[in-house]
């Protein structure tokens, strides 16, 4: 088995990984090894966890190579210049099959639509379907020599003539005046083969404005109603020394190519030019079974979802749920704020009661009436221990008496999940402070104990893990909100509760004040807890991913992608 990998030139495979691969056939006892080794395990490309997807990060160069291949391919098939092949491909959104089909059917129409040739005016005999031989140069660059007359060759029959001059330019033996800037001092001109001449300075400003202001890679001739498109060689020439605009143009071309290909996605991080290829997540239906979280090749912090626009690692929930939940949070933000700050009236004595803490068992301070905050009914009617902190009792909503209580109950239900979601998000946001504090503690440990720098890393490792798990926990509340009640949801919430407890305990450990004499025992406790937390997190992620693949999760409303 390992010999296959020895021959591979893939950088991901090293000796460690080969060992891991062999272990896989044996027992699953790897969990018990020292916490510091665990990271190696997730980096092996072929050892994908159920909740991971296979993908390749691509640099802009890599994508340009893919584009170049398509261009050369089309250029070879049609026997056209690569500038023309590129315009044809861009016009048909890089769909090679469609291009070939259309081009074989009617090359003139495709050339016209792609801005390569101008529409024919006079009715000409139907062209033969033989391949075109556009040996002519696509553009006329450089200063125009006034002696040159446009040569109007009679069309040769049986040969597709791509370049045609419909209206010969008016010959002006006097000084050229650019019809755009009226600047007589501008004598250098360019034109596409339509012979619509403009000064080089206007071309430069125009193309720069198209690329910079409009983020456009499709640059047509400046003349009115002229649909000829400037090929890359023309743009390069017109931009002259402006390499930065040229590079921006290249980036726009790559972005267009990536947008046309469902198995590619551009890294959403600002000014990053990396692309990720993830064919397994290219169809919409795949997004009901996998959560394609990927990282671009530029930075490990450029983590994003290949399947949606949520700029977060939203595992374990699928894109449809993540989107719905975020939309709900946005729509209800006012209501949530209102209800959170709102107080209620005791249904017996009408005095104002403020809720403090998370418990729904309320007692009126004035008349001692005990009631449920959700349905406002008497507490005595509710069973004992009906409430546990991560679980929302759906029964409470059913118990709601009237329409007002019902809508209040549904808001309460939402707030139950929302508050826990927001709490984890908030805690994760505070992680920068926690990192700073932990760093200080690690310094302190090195000074007050025998521990070396490498030996105190367990603290940082623990903070990393807490942060990671809070992200998972955060999204589990979005998941639970949409899960249909029943056994599966209960099992999900059992796992959620176990992870949450473990995370809170680890948090407490790393935030507790340092006592020099107990450092060795703290180290042991933190290390053990970190391993345990990691295990609990794996369980939540793995089991949720498994459930998605099995179609085990039942939703309480319709979710995008699911039937």
């Amino acid at each position, binding site marked *: 088995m390992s010999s296959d990998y020895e021959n591979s030139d893939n950088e991901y495979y090293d000796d460690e990984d080969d060992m891991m691969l062999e272990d896989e056939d044996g027992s699953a006892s790897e969990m018990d090894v020292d916490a510091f080794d665990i990271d190696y395990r997730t980096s092996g490309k072929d050892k994908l966890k159920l909740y991971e997807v296979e993908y390749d990060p691509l640099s802009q160069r890599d994508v340009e190579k893919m584009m170049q291949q398509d261009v050369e391919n089309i250029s070879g098939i049609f026997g056209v210049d690569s500038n023309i092949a590129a315009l044809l491909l861009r016009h048909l959104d890089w769909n090679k099959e469609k291009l070939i089909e259309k081009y074989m059917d009617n090359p003139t129409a495709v050339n016209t639509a792609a801005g390569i040739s101008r529409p024919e005016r006079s009715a000409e005999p139907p062209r033969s379907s033989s391949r075109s031989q556009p040996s002519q140069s696509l553009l006329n660059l450089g200063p125009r020599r006034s002696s040159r007359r446009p040569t109007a060759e009679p069309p040769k029959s049986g040969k597709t003539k791509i370049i045609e001059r419909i209206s010969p330019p008016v010959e002006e033996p006097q000084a050229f005046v650019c019809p755009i*800037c009226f600047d007589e001092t501008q004598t250098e001109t360019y034109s596409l083969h339509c012979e619509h001449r403009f000064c080089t300075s206007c071309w430069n*400003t125009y193309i720069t404005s198209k690329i910079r*202001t409009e983020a456009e890679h499709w640059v047509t001739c*400046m*003349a009115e109603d002229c649909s000829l498109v400037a090929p890359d060689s023309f743009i390069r020439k017109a931009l002259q020394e402006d390499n930065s605009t040229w590079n921006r143009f290249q980036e726009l071309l790559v972005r267009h190519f990536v947008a046309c290909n469902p198995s590619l996605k551009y890294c959403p991080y600002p000014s990053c030019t990396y692309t990720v290829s993830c064919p397994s997540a290219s169809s919409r239906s795949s997004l009901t079974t996998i959560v394609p979280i990927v990282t671009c090749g530029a930075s490990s912090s450029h983590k994003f979802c290949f399947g949606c626009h949520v700029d977060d690692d939203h595992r374990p929930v699928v894109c449809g749920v993540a989107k719905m939940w975020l939309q709900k949070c946005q729509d209800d933000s006012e209501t949530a704020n209102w209800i959170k700050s709102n107080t209620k009236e005791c249904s017996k004595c009408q005095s104002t009661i403020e809720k403090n803490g998370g418990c729904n068992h309320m007692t009126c301070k004035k008349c001692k009436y005990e009631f449920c905050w959700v349905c406002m009914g008497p507490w005595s009617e509710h069973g004992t221990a009906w409430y546990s902190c991560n679980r929302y009792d759906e029964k409470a909503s059913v118990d709601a008496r009237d329409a007002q209580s019902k809508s209040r109950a549904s808001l309460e239900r939402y707030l139950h999940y929302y508050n826990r979601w927001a709490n984890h998000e908030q805690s994760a946001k505070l992680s920068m402070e926690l990192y700073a504090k932990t760093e200080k503690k690690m310094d302190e440990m090195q000074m007050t104990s025998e521990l070396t720098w490498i030996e105190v890393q367990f603290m940082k490792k623990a903070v990393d893990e807490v942060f990671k798990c809070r992200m998972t926990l955060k999204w589990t509340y979005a998941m639970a909100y949409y899960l249909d009640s029943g056994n599966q949801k209960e099992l999900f919430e059992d796992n959620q509760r176990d992870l949450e407890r473990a995370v809170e305990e680890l948090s407490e450990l790393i935030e507790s004040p340092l006592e020099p004499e107990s450092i060795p025992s703290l180290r042991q406790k933190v290390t053990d807890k970190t391993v345990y937390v990691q295990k609990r997190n794996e369980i939540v992620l793995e089991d949720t991913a498994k459930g998605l693949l099995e179609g085990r999760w039942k939703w309480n409303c319709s979710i995008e992608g699911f039937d």
Partner: protein
Amino acid sequence: MDARLRRVNKEIADCKNDKTSNIVVDLIDSSPYHLRGSFSGPEDTPYQGGHFEVDIVIPESYPFQPVKMKFITKVYHPNVSSASGAICLDILKDAWSPVLTLKSTLISLQSLLCSPEPNDPQDAEVAKHYMTSKSSFEETARYWTMIYAGGPGKGGVPKATKGGTMDEVAMAGLEKAHVDQFEAIGFERSKVIDVLRRLNYRGANVAKINDDRVVEELLK
């Protein structure tokens, strides 16, 4: 000299020298980048005899980005917002070309008045009116031309005096009898006009919209 300034100055001068096109471009203040264009309503249209003014803003990247234009004069036309004067015309957007000028663009606006494009409307209510009954639409457009653009009154109808009352029913392109009918039930006249206009209570539509539907809207 700055290329944009040279070009705009030349354009303004060209308009001044050209006496045949009847296109006028004036400075509003000292800036050559905020102008007022005007032209007369095309003949054989409901806009005939009117004088139409257009607000012109020359953007920083002119002429590589399109000039910004909107009607100052209120116009009843499917491609012009009856409220803001905003114009839906391709050359002011994607179809702009740097060789187009203020003059050629204003001429295009003039010809837009000749040939409305109700399928690509700026003002959906006006477009619906146009599609439902062209003759009723033209009557309203003519009335607006008279009220706002100083156009002539329709045979015998006196030109509205400045500050005088204008006929709200005609402004909305409705029939007086229809407005009277619902006003008689006890609804406020302005509310009736508003609802009937929104429902496009004109031409063949009148038969399709039953009275209950109108009353329901009026009660909202």
